[in-house]
């Protein structure tokens, strides 16, 4: 089957999107969550079950403890307390663990073992996934149901000292707080002293219910010198004395009030043998958890070994202890020893509450929940519980009651364990099988693209795709059978949940067939390449291809960028890479231009009487180029003189100056938005402009930018779209004035700020109108084959429609980005690409590079936080998911999209033949290369400390980018099709 290279590339990218989507689905498992978030408080607590006689206990049980102190020590792994270090350095704690009124546990943390997700897990009882962060983009506050929010709603007064992450997660929750920033990890005394200095005062006061202390010092020591450093001992001793201070003060208070208090000592995550954390080694996962209260009395000789529990169990326990409803999305089960001392009726009540909450969560997250063993156990224990209540209310024999009670309790504990296990199995594990299948698909596509470079970039821009050849079909069926067998084996033996196994057999079979078909295609392409290679080696006359400096730069730049994705710092500062690359590209272009302009004056002085007159023979450098281009693209007119010679005087000067103009533009844009991480806090023009003092300047700038945009766009539009463009840009300004970003000259102060829905819709209408006109022209050009100009105009109109939409969505201080983008495109078209006659591949890659650079010029970065969500609300009254997502995606990726659409319109107006197909192929290749490499990198770095903070957001950006690339390639192919027809 013969395919055009554009079509082929588009198909490849679409398959790649599927692969990346499967990979992402495996990489980011969806978290278990309850649907009711804030409304939870309104819900009445589940009443006590009863069979026959009604129980009147429908309210929540009263709190078990008067005051709760949570002492969280960052990086407190279990053996620091229960091991030899604990015995040596924490004598008081060891005493409490072994003989005191306490319950000790080894709490197992889930991935990622870094502080913020762990705090969430401790307080919500849920397992936060990365997707959570994406879902509530613009608020760092914790929106899920959690113990702190519940406690605040119940009127408890909470005091917090320690890591300021808490303050960000729970804004306005604490009546008093002091967040310590720990910028210097080498500081491990100051951070803790800042917490401890408040203790004496606070412990004397009685005006609080919950006190939370988060000590960072231990973790800092771990980062600096590892878990075996002598500093650890000092720190543990310090922590021990603090614990003693708190405990004695709580005890002395209890003597007065006679109500027990609770002291919780816990760690958020452990510490690996090298001192870091983030991964899944046993040392990092196991943390100490000790609950200390006079309510947990024990007789001498009662040895309690630390039991293994889940970290998420603490949330449910705290909620019960404080008399609060259990957080809705908590997957933890109550730590039963804490309520052991209570009467049996109360114990069963607590267990029932917990089981009801878990089963509700199960119902919301698992479609076939009735078949789950945990749910059945829960139903059975609920029935038994009802019987027990009836007996209890009938004042039955106490021994029977006790025995039955013990049975119910055992039933409940089993049910809780099973429920909790099946819920937490849903998340917090990489779904390696899905990831693997996705990776294989992506890699096969990449291999296919790479192998078909020579064919796809040939003059016909067509390639043979051997899908139906019989030899390979045998291989295909074999592969298909093997893969299907593998699939069955993997899915039947898998313990954790797997998305790909959850798919229907038909879909999975389709994916397997696709994979084997791709493999066959790669194989045949390889075989063909070897055959061709033999042919070539027999043919010594074949000209040796020489690469120009520009091609070397492009190749090295692409490779360098891909390699740089392996380092977290380079991902954070990826904009620097792109700025650096386009600057170098400009200098290389400058070199090429100057060589073309001046060198012939020098080498061939006999011909060079005047610059303007021009000469016939091409420069030696150009001959090299043309040889190389013959290799890649023989159709190109390479023998003729470059049109550099035919330029008029001023144009020649413009050609010479254009790289410098572009460089200056890029430098200006660079100082418009500081992005990334290291230098993000530096003052930039954007901040200066958006501050309220400089509204007038911003207004002038926005107006000027809109005028320049019009001037640059209108020159190739038809009359109607010119008018529409002008009105649309006017509408953009009105919209910005309406929402109070800019001022009208007659407006003194911005009093009336509206949402600007009417103005924005006005612009939307013109955007749609221009796009419609463009499409109409394109369709017309397909019917009237001869008319070439209509098509050019149509493409340009579609492009200008996108520009108008971008102008509407960009923040006003970002309008210069749009202006400079148009300006650079104009200059490059006029003075660089046309005179120097680059081939389609080079032009495509230059467009791609500039598109990437403009992505960052807009102020984007590789962290999710810089996505401008407000763009999704432009022109919408309420939040509507699909348009909002489309608008946000367009506003974020406006740079690459605009450059790509400029590429289409430029290539179809300037060149003919196979250029569009080549461009589409190159675009697909250069976009899929980083994605494929990145997927492999991320898979190998999945236990890296920064996987959630640095690598995962970038992965999401890459996924979105490949999706947009697929759309662009489809557009390319559509244009290419119309081209070949006409």
């Amino acid at each position, binding site marked *: 089957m013969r395919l055009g290279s554009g079509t082929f590339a588009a198909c490849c990218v679409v398959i790649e999107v599927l692969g990346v989507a499967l990979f992402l689905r495996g990489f980011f498992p969806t978290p278990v969550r309850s649907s009711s978030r804030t409304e939870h408080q309104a819900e009445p607590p589940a009443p006590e079950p009863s069979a026959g006689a009604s129980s009147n206990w429908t309210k929540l049980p009263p709190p078990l403890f008067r005051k709760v102190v949570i002492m969280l020590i960052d990086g407190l792994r279990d053996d620091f307390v229960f091991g030899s270090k604990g015995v040596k350095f924490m004598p008081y704690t060891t005493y409490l663990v072994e003989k005191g009124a306490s319950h000790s546990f080894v709490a197992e943390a889930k991935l*990622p073992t*870094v*502080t*913020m997700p762990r*705090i969430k897990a401790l307080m919500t009882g849920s397992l936060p996934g990365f997707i959570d*962060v994406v879902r509530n983009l613009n608020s*760092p506050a914790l929106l899920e149901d959690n113990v702190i929010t519940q406690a605040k709603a119940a009127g408890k007064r909470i005091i917090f000292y320690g*890591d300021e*992450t808490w303050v*960000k*997660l729970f804004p306005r929750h604490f009546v008093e707080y002091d967040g310590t*920033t720990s*910028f*210097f*990890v*080498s500081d491990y005394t100051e951070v803790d002293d800042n917490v401890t200095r408040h203790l004496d005062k606070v412990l004397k006061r009685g005006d609080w219910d919950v006190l939370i202390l988060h000590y960072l010092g231990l973790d*800092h020591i771990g*980062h*600096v010198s590892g878990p075996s450093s002598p500093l650890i001992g000092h720190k543990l001793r310090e922590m021990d004395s603090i614990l003693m201070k708190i405990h004695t003060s709580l005890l002395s208070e209890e003597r007065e009030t006679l109500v027990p208090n609770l002291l919780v000592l816990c760690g958020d995550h452990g510490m690996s043998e090298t001192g*870091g954390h*983030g991964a899944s080694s046993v040392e990092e996962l196991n943390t100490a958890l000790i609950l200390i209260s006079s309510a947990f009395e024990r007789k001498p000789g009662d040895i309690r070994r630390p039991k293994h529990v889940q970290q998420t169990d603490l949330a449910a326990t705290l909620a019960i202890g404080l008399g609060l409803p259990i957080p809705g999305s908590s997957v933890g089960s109550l730590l039963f020893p804490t309520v052991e001392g209570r009467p049996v009726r109360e114990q069963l009540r607590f267990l029932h509450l917990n089981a009801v909450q878990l089963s509700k969560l199960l119902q919301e997250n698992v479609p076939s929940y009735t078949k789950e063993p945990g749910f059945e156990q829960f139903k059975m224990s609920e029935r038994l519980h009802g019987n027990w209540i009836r007996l209890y209310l009938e004042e039955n024999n106490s021994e029977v009651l006790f025995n039955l009670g013990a049975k119910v309790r055992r039933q409940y504990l089993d049910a809780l364990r099973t429920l909790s296990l099946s819920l937490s199995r849903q998340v917090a594990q990489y779904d390696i099988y899905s990831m693997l299948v996705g990776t294989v698909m992506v890699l096969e596509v990449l291999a296919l693209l790479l192998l078909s470079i020579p064919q796809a970039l040939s003059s016909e821009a067509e390639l043979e795709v051997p899908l139906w050849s019989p030899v390979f079909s045998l291989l295909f069926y074999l592969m298909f059978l093997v893969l299907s067998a593998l699939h069955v084996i993997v899915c039947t033996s898998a313990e954790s949940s797997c998305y790909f196994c959850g798919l229907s057999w038909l879909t999975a079979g389709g994916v397997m067939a696709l994979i084997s078909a791709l493999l066959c295609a790669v194989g045949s392409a390889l075989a063909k390449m070897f055959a061709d290679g033999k042919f070539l080696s027999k043919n010594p006359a074949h000209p040796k291809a020489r690469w120009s400096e520009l091609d070397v730069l492009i190749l090295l730049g692409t490779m360098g960028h891909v390699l740089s994705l392996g*380092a*977290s*710092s*380079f991902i*954070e*500062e990826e904009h*620097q*890479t792109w*700025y*650096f690359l386009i*600057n*170098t590209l400009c*200098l290389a272009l400058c070199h090429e231009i*100057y*060589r073309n302009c*001046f*060198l012939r*004056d*020098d080498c061939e002085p006999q011909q060079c009487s005047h610059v303007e007159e021009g000469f016939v023979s091409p420069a*030696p*450098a150009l001959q*090299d180029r043309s040889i190389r281009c013959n290799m890649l693209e023989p159709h190109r007119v390479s023998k003729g003189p470059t049109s550099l010679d035919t330029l008029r005087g001023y144009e020649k000067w413009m050609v010479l100056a254009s790289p410098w103009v572009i*460089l*200056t533009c*890029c*430098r200006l844009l660079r*100082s418009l938005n500081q992005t*990334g*991480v*290291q230098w993000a*806090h530096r003052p930039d023009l954007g901040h200066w402009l958006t501050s309220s003092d400089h509204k007038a300047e911003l207004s002038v700038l926005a107006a000027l930018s809109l005028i320049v945009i019009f001037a640059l766009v209108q020159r190739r539009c038809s009359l109607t779209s010119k008018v529409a463009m002008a009105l649309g840009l006017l509408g953009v300004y009105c919209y910005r004035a309406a929402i109070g970003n800019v001022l009208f000259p007659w407006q003194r102060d911005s009093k009336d700020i509206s949402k600007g829905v009417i103005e924005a819709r006005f612009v939307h209408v013109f955007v749609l109108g221009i796009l419609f006109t463009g499409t109409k022209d394109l369709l017309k050009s397909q019917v009237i084959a001869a008319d070439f100009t209509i098509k050019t105009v149509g493409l340009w109109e579609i492009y200008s429609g996108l520009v108008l939409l971008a102008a509407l969505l960009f923040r006003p201080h970002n309008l210069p980005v749009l202006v400079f983008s148009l300006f650079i495109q104009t200059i490059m078209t006029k003075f660089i690409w046309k005179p120097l006659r680059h081939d389609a591949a080079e032009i495509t890659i230059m467009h791609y590079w500039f598109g990437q650079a403009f992505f960052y010029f807009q102020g984007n970065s590789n*962290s*999710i*936080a810089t996505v401008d969500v407000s763009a999704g609300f432009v022109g919408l009254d309420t939040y509507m998911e699909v348009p909002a997502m489309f608008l946000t995606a367009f506003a974020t990726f406006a740079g690459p999209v605009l450059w790509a659409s400029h590429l289409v319109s430029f290539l179809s107006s300037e060149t003919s033949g196979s250029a569009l197909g080549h461009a589409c192929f190159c675009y697909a290749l250069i976009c899929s290369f980083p994605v494929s490499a990145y997927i492999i990198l991320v898979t190998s770095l999945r236990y890296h*400390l*920064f996987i959630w*903070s*640095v690598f995962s*957001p970038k992965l999401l950006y890459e996924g979105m980018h490949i999706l947009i690339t697929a759309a662009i390639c489809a557009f390319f192919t559509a244009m290419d099709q119309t081209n070949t027809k006409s």
Partner: protein
Amino acid sequence: MPLSASPAAHTRPGIFIPSFFLENFSILETHLTWLCICSVFVTAVNLLLYLVVKPNASSKRSSLSYKVTRFLKCCIYFLMSCFFFHVIFVLYGAPLIELVLETFLFAVILSTFTTVPCLCLLGPNIKAWLRVFSRNGVTSIWENSLQITTISSFIGTWLGAFPIPLDWERPWQMAIERKYKMCTSLYVCTRHGASHCPQVWPISCTLGATFGYVAGLVISPLWIYWNRKQLTYKNH
């Protein structure tokens, strides 16, 4: 032209400057002093070797005034190239207002590695420079080695910019801590106004340039030696 003595002998590496003349001297901490010393030294060695070796000694003896104007022209060219490089660094993203001295000294040292040998060898003649730095434009081994050292200096500088985004020259914990804080603060960086790293701006680039230059000095004789069969120069 027959192959004669080692072509790159006219420039001794300027690395081995004894540091015992200065109190508290260290390349990284008193970097600007180091830059000045290095550039003066390299220039001096270049000039000295130019006067001693006279790679393109012209047959006609020129007048004193011609020599003086030529020297002045060279000085002006050197200054211009310094400013030119400065502008390019700013275009590449060097701060415009802060750290002007650092950027300028960086420009000076790069000019020393590239422009000064050009001026010595080719004189203030832009066209000759362009010819040397384009493909097949070299006419002598001197120019060949000039080409190699200059290009390797540029490449060294270019590569030297790579470590800048890395958390370079700082205690590694700080990098860990920064991102660790980011993990904990919901992937948002809000460290506005945080005291920043010790200023390291041109160091990696100047070191890159120096290493590139030295590498060029090493490579060029070797390259010429290996390719001595293929080297045929057109005489002007």
